[in-house]
């Protein structure tokens, strides 16, 4: 149709960009509007956490895990603490397990609230759904504040349990929150599910097929949206997740719309888990007797959980000392970005933003 000689050019979706959810940078080769290729550039938030881990004791590293994936600090704490307990063979009292399940699921709600809000904002609904979800997230942050005294970096979990027991008015507040969150989620879903603009912008956009997802090591809602029925809470249960019944939402096509739907349905399942955990929480100690400077036996261990973004794991090597000899963090967000290059080719720049928004990443976890 057009016989004009046009050349591609390179555009920096750079570190300072409103919709790259942090300091992530892509060098996008564009042919006008169409994306030919992108080359990710990392490292703008590389704080060398694994180097700092070498000079911190096992218990001293917990505050650093808050700042890894700062949107779900509770899950980071839980993953690290589970790995140390696996390495040192520490048993956790049942009440601590139930508290950890409640905190992990509340954190999943808070994380998905931001991710779904930002994703719909990228699709064009300028911040209205984001602010409604943010209002709900503020209520969750109030409860975390009640429990740990912090809004974002909780430092709440300890090796062998949790730092302090639930305050008396936590469970009533949680019950009130759950009862009013369910109708809110129904209404939110009703308003956005069949919205034709959202359908037009996300249905069939950035398809990630199942084989590519498995090969790229993708985990979490992005993988489940492509049809992989894998959730560590069911496949490799920890913290007593086998006691709760919940189902795993799985998408069919693996496009942006499925990823959005999987996250919204996961929020519903998290509410179901919280209700069951609230009802069945036993009394008793919330923390096992663990020396302050725990010295696990020589050896290594890998503990992983189903964090809101995917499989978050810590690989610890112990040389019998008080500090881990090596502490490696499995970066879910970094690995989930492997397939972005194939998913984005051929789409327009506006779709690149939507696809990137559907793979929810946090730079603290990407660059560590």
């Amino acid at each position, binding site marked *: 149709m057009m016989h004009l000689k046009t050349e591609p050019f390179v555009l920096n979706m750079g570190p*300072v960009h*409103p919709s790259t959810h942090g300091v992530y940078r892509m*060098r996008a080769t564009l042919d006008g509007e169409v994306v030919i290729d992108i080359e990710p550039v990392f490292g703008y*938030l590389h704080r060398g956490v694994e180097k700092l881990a070498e000079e911190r004791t096992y218990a001293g590293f917990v505050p650093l895990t808050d700042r890894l994936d700062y949107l779900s600090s509770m899950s980071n704490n839980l993953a690290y603490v589970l790995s140390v307990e696996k390495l040192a063979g520490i048993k956790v009292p049942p009440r601590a397990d139930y508290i950890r399940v409640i905190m992990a699921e509340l954190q999943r709600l808070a994380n998905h609230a931001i991710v779904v809000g930002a994703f719909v904002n990228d699709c064009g609904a300028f911040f209205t759904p984001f602010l409604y979800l*943010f209002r709900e997230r*503020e209520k969750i942050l109030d409860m975390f504040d009640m429990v740990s005294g912090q809004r974002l970096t909780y430092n709440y979990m300890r090796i062998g349990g949790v730092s302090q027991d639930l305050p008396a008015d936590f469970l009533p507040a949680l019950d009130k929150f759950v009862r009013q969150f369910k109708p809110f989620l129904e209404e939110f879903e009703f308003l956005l599910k069949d919205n034709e603009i959202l359908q037009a912008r996300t249905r069939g956009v950035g398809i990630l097929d199942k084989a590519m997802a498995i090969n790229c090591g993708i985990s979490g809602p992005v993988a489940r949206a492509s049809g992989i029925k894998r959730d560590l809470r069911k496949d490799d249960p920890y913290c007593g997740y086998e006691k709760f019944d919940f189902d795993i939402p799985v998408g069919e096509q693996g496009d942006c719309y499925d990823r959005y739907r999987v996250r919204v349905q996961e929020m519903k399942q998290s509410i179901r888990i919280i209700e069951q955990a609230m009802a069945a929480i036993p009394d008793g100690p919330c923390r096992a007797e663990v020396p302050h400077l725990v010295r696990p036996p020589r050896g290594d261990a890998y503990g992983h959980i189903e964090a809101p973004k995917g499989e978050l794991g810590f690989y610890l090597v112990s040389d019998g000392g008080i500090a881990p000899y090596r502490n490696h963090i499995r970066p879910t967000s970094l690995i989930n970005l492997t397939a972005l290059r194939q998913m984005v080719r051929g789409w327009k720049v506006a779709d690149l933003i939507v696809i990137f928004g559907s793979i929810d990443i946090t730079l603290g976890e990407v660059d560590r």
Partner: protein
Amino acid sequence: MEVSNYREPIYSPDEIDLHEGQIIEDLKSSAVEPIPDPDAWLEQEDVKRNLVLTTADWVINWARRSALWPAICFPACCAFEFIAVNGPRFDLSRFGMEILRASPRQADLMITAGTLTWKMAPNVKRIYDQMPEPKWVIAMGACGISGGIFRSSYNVVPGYNKIIPVDVYVPGCPPRPEALIHAIQMLQKKIAKSHPVPDLKQLTGKEPM
């Protein structure tokens, strides 16, 4: 128009990486001494000034401090506390800071929400340089003030004042929204004390500004 796959990339990543690496190295070697905070003029006692000038001062200061538009510099966790401050509960638009501009051209306040690494330092300096005068900087969070919990890391700049002059420091990791709002109010008080309108003598060049 089918996307014909241009196999030969039209830029060489290695060459660009080397060039940017050189920029980072230069900045790293030059940014050793912290830049002094720009508030030397705060201590000067208020000299008697013409009524017209002081009212003009007041009007201009009122206009500047009640519409501070923040630039985007959101590397890490403090970014989400800043978004929470912009959110429905701690509404920042009560202070006229509702517009969050993506480009530094329309911003006059840089709130540095997050840890600064050496790889990000030249970009933040470039954003600061591209902001029009008058501009102010709030260093938010322990990482902004002194590198915070990551101070001993090999890749973290110990404090934003190594590369840009900072007006207000906000402690906390991350600082609570109330602390950030208090910091913004402190900055507004600081702006209220400034004297943007020059005297006649300064205008005609007898005295420096």
